[in-house]
């Protein structure tokens, strides 16, 4: 992983067209601003992980569908 040190109001640029700015630092919370083209998907990682876990859950078990539908 690339590690960079940034101060408040400093940014990093990804792929020429995505800008990530540190807006506010308050204890263990950091407010981050992201400027990106509309087609770029931006997600909180914990939501992504939750969806992956639920997809795994959905495949668990060996259900006899005749009993359901």
């Amino acid at each position, binding site marked *: 992983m690339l590690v960079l040190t940034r101060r408040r109001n400093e940014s990093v640029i990804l792929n020429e067209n995505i800008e990530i700015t540190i807006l506010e630092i308050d204890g263990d919370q950091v407010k981050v601003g992201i400027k990106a083209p509309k087609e770029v998907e931006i997600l909180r990682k914990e939501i*992504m992980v939750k*969806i992956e876990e*639920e997809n795994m859950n959905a*495949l668990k078990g060996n259900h006899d569908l005749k009993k359901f539908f």
Partner: protein
Amino acid sequence: MNIKTRYHEEIEVSKEDIIYFGSGIPGFPEDKEFINLPLGMDSSFSILQSINNEELGFVIAEPFSFFKEYEFDLDESVITQLKIKDKTDIIIYSIVTLGDSLATSTVNLQAPIIINKRESLGKQAILNTDKYHTKHVLATKKQMGQEG
């Protein structure tokens, strides 16, 4: 071509029926080609089956038949990726996690499956919202939108 499926045994599929999921499905990024296999004639349920991985078959349902007030805005990124030109071209499903019975089964309303029929493109969109979560109980659908 013939494929093995999780719930329908071996079946024949034609190329036109294949829906391409460019980034796979979260948790299963390798599998990109799926087909939608109906469960009976007038069921709201069907199976989203990977054509390359027999075990990868999700029970899916049309959410609006159970959750009348379900609504969300599609992100521009999804509209671009799925080349959506007209909203009548899309079908929306939700993945069902089966319990012991239908009454204890849950529906993931936070990550709807969006399919553009015209382009045969699909994606599991993830909604950046607290309004919906991954386990809405089918039986208590009136409580939709509440935390559970």
